[in-house]
Structures are given as structure tokens and as C-alpha cells.
């Protein structure tokens, strides 16, 4: 639905967020102390890392997971849960 078609216009003076999913462009990568690194050779495309990422920082492509380092906060759930050790961790340069 386009904005002018919306039945609810909001109250004057009270801001409403009009763009869905706009937080994706916020950089949370600076929270990270370690970063996940994906190794394509060991990956079995089981989708476990993609499903368990709490920040939706892993996008699914036909070639397997793709890490979005702009959103990744470095919780390392993907590294811990990967059954084939295709995800490894690497220290961020400080």
C-alpha cells in the first residue's frame, strides 16, 4: 500500500516511521569484537546459521549463507551451532 492510500494519517506533530525495515542501514558492526568467517568448502547448506541469527545478519543465497557485517553484532551463535565448523571466528582489528 502506498502512503497516500493509507487510511490512517497519524496525528499532527507525532512522527511515524514510514519505511519498513529501515534499521537495516544502521551500522551495528562496531559492537563486534570477533567476526564470523564462512568457509564455503565445508558448508553443507543446512541453514542452521541463517535460522538462528538473532539479527538477521546472515542472508540466504543459492550458494549458501552470506554474512552482512553491517548488522552482525558478533554474538557467535553461528560459530557455536555450525555442525561442520564451516563458520569460524576471527578477531576484529582494534
Amino acid at each position, binding site marked *: 500500500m502506498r502512503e497516500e492510500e493509507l487510511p490512517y494519517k497519524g496525528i499532527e506533530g507525532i512522527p511515524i516511521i514510514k519505511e519498513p525495515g529501515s534499521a*537495516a542501514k544502521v551500522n551495528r558492526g562496531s559492537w563486534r569484537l570477533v567476526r564470523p568467517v564462512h568457509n564455503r568448502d565445508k558448508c553443507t547448506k543446512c541453514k542452521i546459521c541463517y535460522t538462528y541469527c538473532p539479527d538477521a545478519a546472515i542472508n540466504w543465497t543459492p550458494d549458501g549463507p552470506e554474512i552482512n557485517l553491517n548488522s552482525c*553484532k558478533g554474538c557467535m551463535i553461528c560459530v557455536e551451532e555450525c555442525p561442520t565448523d564451516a563458520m569460524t571466528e576471527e578477531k576484529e582489528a582494534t
Partner: protein
Amino acid sequence: MQGFKSIRNLPEQDYFTGGSSACAGCGPSLGLKLALKVLGPETIIVNASGCMTLLPLYPNTPLKSSWIHNAIENASSTAAGARHGLDMLGNEDMNVVVYAGDGATYDIGFASLSAAATKNERIIYICYNNQSFGNTGFQWSTATPYGSETKTTPRGKNNPIGTTVVNKNMLKIMGAHRVYAATASLAYPVDFLNKLNRAKERDGFSYIELLGSCTAGWNYDPRMTIRISKLAVRCGMWPLYEIENGVLTLSKDFSELKRIDEFLKLQGRYRALPQDGVDRLQVLVNEHWGELKEYNGHRYV
């Protein structure tokens, strides 16, 4: 309806993006991401004040669905109102979902939840249970299990146990409202999303309680979020079951439970719990599990 079979065939779309202000490894945030996979963008999420209120911070939101925030007491009333409004407009496909913490469910918002459940409003209530008032700094709530340390029940010389009261059995209370009530875990996303699908198709109130591991409050390494959720199920601290029309069904049945020590030793909130406290907690867990096994497939409430 055919349910999901494995993680591989869960829906691929995400209606949740990164960039929120939740902690790294946040359990409830992962729960919302998974829930939106099934609910889709045609959803109004009603939120009671809590950790998840901080997800959409002006001018950014990680959600691709609508969001209403209301006070901690009346999320269920707001949702019921939204449902009635949508029905009047003829928009019956829109989902109305409450996403509220355990403080808003067990304690402060219990009256409005009970009213909405009694009137059998067509809404889905998801409680992300982090077993405390997490957003204000981990204070005791009636969902806090025996033996857990919180800010308001600290361990000391006179009270080495921490929380000395036993948490209330919310599923039994909700089951007694004659609605669909189920527990879910982040470590079993297929089970969670199948239950959510079931709730979505019902013409009435559904209550799903999700154990939302809290890295800051439970005091563990963020990478352990899924492992701790899995251990909670395997140790019997968080059994997975559903109650419909008063009949209990275990979703994950184990012939033998693991000892709870494995679950406790990963978390800072149980670190100084003395051995007699651990033994007492084990007895409580075994009692609850025994009760569930006994009533599996039978009338529970």
C-alpha cells in the same frame, strides 16, 4: 495443514532486519524474527513495555510489519481492540499478535490477558519469557525459577538460595481458560513455527510461551543462547507441550532427562547456588515433568 519438517524447509523470507538495539545474542529478538517468518508482513504486533519496545527507535525500525506499543498492563486489551477494528473494516486476514515479556504476562498485564482469553478474542499472544523483569535490570517476577539470583532477590548470608518461591504454572492457568496454550523453545524453531501456524489457523485466543534466553540477565556468553535453550528442554526446566481443550500433549518426550547441573553451570545467575538448592530445584523439575508425563494425552485442567 502440513507442518514444517526441518529447518531446511522453513519459510525463506525474513520480515525482520538487523540494526536493532537489542543485545548481541538476544533470545526474544530471535523469537520475533522466527515468528514473523510465519506471520508475514500482514501483521499488527502489539507490544507491552519491555525489552522489545526498544526495537523500533525513531526514525528506524527493524520490522516490516506494523507495531503498536502500549503500556505494560493492557497489551491484550489493545490487541482485542485492534482485532475488533479490523473485523469492522472487513480485514479478517490481518494477524493481531501480542509480543510481551513475562513481567507483562505473569504479573502486571495478567488481568487484561485473562479477560481477553476468557472472551476468546481472535489474537495470538506470544510471551517471551526471560524469567525476570529484564529491561529494568533483572528484577524478580513470578516467572523466576527457584534458586535464581535476581537484583531484588540477591544471595547473601541469610538467604543463600536467592529466589525462594517457586514460579507459577502459567500454562496450566491459560489451559484452564479453555484456549490453545503451548510452550516453545528457540532451539526447536520447527516446533515453534508449527505451533504458531496452528495458532494462526484457530478461530480464537492462542497463547504461546517462548523461553527467551537473556544474555545480560542470565549472565552467560552470547554464543550459548541456543545451547542453553536446548539444555533447558533436555533437562526438563522448560518442557515443550501444548494444551488444547484441557488435553495435554507433550511435543518433545524424553525417556530420561539430563541432570539440571548441566543447564545451571552455564549461567551466572545460578553460579553460587549451594548444593541443597540444586537438589531442591531438581526435585521440583522432576515433579513437574512427572506430572506432565502422567497427564500426556489426557485431560490436564
